[in-house]
C-alpha cells in the first residue's frame, strides 16, 4: 500500500462525517469514483482547474464544510498559491491540502512535475501545520488530526519512505542516541532511513519528525547541543529559520541538507536525484563528516 492508497482509504472513511468534502482536479479522481457515487455532493472533481479547486475549497469552508483538497504537489501548491493565500487564509477559513509527487517522485517526468519548494511556499503562510509522513502507516492518523482540526494543514505524501512507521512523531523522536555532546541530526519524513544509514558510524544522535510545522521547538532545545544537522526531503534550508530562531540564545552551528535550488535538467530516477542532491546515504555522510570536521578545525585554529 502506498501513501496515496492510505490517503484515499482514510479520506473515503471520513466522508461518513457530513462536513467532509473532497475536492479534486482530475488527479486521483479514479480512486474516488466509488466514494463519489455514494456521496455525489461531497466528492467534487472540478476538472483540470487548480485555481477553482482552491477557490471551491474556500467557499465550502465558508459554509462550514471541511474540504480535503488533493492534487499533484506542484499543481496543488505552486500553481494556485494566491488562491491558497487569499481564498483560504485571508477569508479566515481552513482546508486540508494533500499532495502527491513530492520533490521528485516522478523524476522521469521532468521539472514540471517536481515540487521541492512546496513546503517553503506553505511556510510563507501563517499558522499552517505541515505533515511529511515517512511511511504509509503514518498517513491515517495524520489525516485524522488534520480533518478533525479547523485550521489549514498541508499533508505531503511521497512514494519514498522508510522501512518502519512511527505513527506518533509530531514531536522529535530520538531514533538513535549517540550520548551526551553528540551532534543532533533531525530527519524529516522519508529521509530517516537514509540519514540513519549515513551516520551509522558517526557520533550523531538522530531524531525523527513527520511534522516540520509547527516544528517541535521544545524538543529541539532539549536535544540540541552545539551542532545541529537538519535533513529535509524538500528544498534545503526550508527549516533553517525555525531552527535558528529556536536556538538563537545559544552558540550553535547548523547544517541544512535537502534538495538543491538549481534546476538540474535531468530525468532519471528518484534515486538518481537523491544522489545528485547529496541525499543518498553516501552523500549525506560526506556532508555530515565535512560539517563535523570543519567544526573541529574552527575550534582548533586561531581566528585569522
Amino acid at each position: 500500500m502506498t501513501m496515496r492508497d492510505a490517503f484515499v482509504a482514510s479520506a473515503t472513511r471520513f466522508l461518513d462525517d457530513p462536513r467532509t468534502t473532497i475536492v479534486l482536479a482530475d488527479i486521483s479522481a479514479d480512486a474516488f469514483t466509488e466514494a463519489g457515487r455514494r456521496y455525489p455532493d461531497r466528492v467534487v472533481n472540478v476538472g483540470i482547474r487548480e485555481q477553482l479547486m482552491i477557490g471551491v475549497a474556500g467557499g465550502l469552508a465558508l459554509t462550514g464544510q471541511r474540504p480535503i483538497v488533493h492534487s499533484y504537489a506542484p499543481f496543488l501548491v505552486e500553481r494556485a498559491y494566491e488562491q491558497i493565500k487569499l481564498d483560504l487564509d485571508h477569508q479566515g477559513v481552513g482546508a486540508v491540502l494533500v499532495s502527491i509527487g513530492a520533490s521528485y517522485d516522478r523524476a522521469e517526468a521532468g521539472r514540471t512535475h517536481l515540487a521541492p519548494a512546496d513546503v517553503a511556499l506553505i511556510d510563507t503562510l501563517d499558522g499552517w501545520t505541515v505533515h511529511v509522513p515517512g511511511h504509509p502507516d503514518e498517513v491515517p492518523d495524520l489525516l485524522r488530526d488534520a480533518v478533525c482540526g479547523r485550521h489549514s494543514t498541508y499533508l505531503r505524501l511521497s512514494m519514498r519512505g522508510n522501512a518502519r512507521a512511527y505513527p506518533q512523531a509530531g514531536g522529535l523522536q530520538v531514533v538513535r542516541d549517540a550520548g551526551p555532546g553528540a551532534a543532533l541530526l533531525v530527519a524529516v519524513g522519508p529521509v530517516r532511513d537514509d540519514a540513519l544509514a549515513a551516520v551509522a558510524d558517526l557520533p550523531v544522535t538522530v531524531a525523527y519528525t513527520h511534522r516540520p510545522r509547527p516544528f517541535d521547538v521544545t524538543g529541539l532545545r532539549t536535544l540540541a547541543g552545539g551542532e545541529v544537522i537538519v535533513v529535509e526531503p524538500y528544498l534545503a534550508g526550508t527549516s533553517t529559520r525555525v531552527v535558528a530562531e529556536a536556538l538563537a540564545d545559544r552558540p550553535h552551528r547548523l547544517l541544512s541538507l535537502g534538495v538543491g535550488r538549481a534546476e538540474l535538467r535531468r530525468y532519471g530516477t528518484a534515486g538518481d536525484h537523491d544522489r545528485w542532491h547529496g541525499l543518498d546515504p553516501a552523500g549525506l555522510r560526506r556532508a555530515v563528516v565535512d560539517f563535523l570536521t570543519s567544526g573541529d578545525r574552527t575550534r582548533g585554529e586561531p581566528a585569522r
Partner: protein
Amino acid sequence: MTTPTATRPPGRVLPGPVVAPLERLRAGRHYDANVYSTVDVHWTLYDRVLRVTPATVDDPDRDRFLLSKGHAVAGYYAVLAAKGFIPADWLDDEGGPDSRLGGHPDRTLVPGVEIGSGSLGHGLGLGVGTALGLRAQGRTTPRVYVLLGDAELDEGSNHEAIAYAGATGLAGLTAIVLDNASASHGWPGGVASRFAVNGWTAATVDGHDHDALYAALTGHDGHRPHAVVAVDTPAHPADRPDGSTAGDVTTPGSRP
C-alpha cells in the same frame, strides 16, 4: 425615491438612501466613475433581492452576496450603512489605522461582508464553493450572488468557474457582471455569451434601471446557474463632460 445630489456623475441619479452615506464616505474626495457605476446594482440587491438583514448575517440559510470586484467598495459600504449592517460613523474613517473599512473589504472586519476581495478573479470560485457547500448541506433556499466586472473577466480563474458551474448545472449561483466596458481587449460578442455558451442562463440589462435589474436578478430558472450582465450606459451623452462615447466614460480605475 431617488434624489439627485452634487456627488452624482453627470446624468446619474443615485438611490436616495445611499446618497448620505456615500457622501460621508467620500469626504470631499474625487470618486472614479466606477464607484457610481455599481451603486445601483448594490442597492437593488440589498433593497429588493437578497434575503439577508443585519440580524441574519450568520444565519446559514441567508442569501450570500460576494463582492468579487473588491475595489467597488464605496457603494457597497454605503449600502451596508444605509441598510444598518454597519454603523454610519464607520464611514468617516475609511482606510484609517483603526478603521474596519478599507479600500478593499475584509470579511473578518465588516459585518455582512461575505468575502475579503481586491485581487481580481477570486469571487466566482469562492461562490462556486459556497453554492456547493450549501447544496451538500441540503440548503435549497439560500442563493449565492457574485458581483464581478467586465475587466475582471480577463482573469482566467473566472473561466474555470464559469465552465465548471455551467457543466454541472450549479443552480444556486448567480454571477452579476458590471459591464462598464473597461476590459482592455473587450469581449467581442458580449459578456453574456461567455456564460450562455457554458450552459448558464443569461440576461443583459441596463445597470441603472432598478426594475430591469430586479427582473434579471430574480430571473434564474432553478436548474442552471444564472448570469446578469448589468451594462453601465451613461444616461445621456450630452451630460458627459467631454462628449466621449459610452466606452470611454468610465475608467478602469482603482485596480490594484
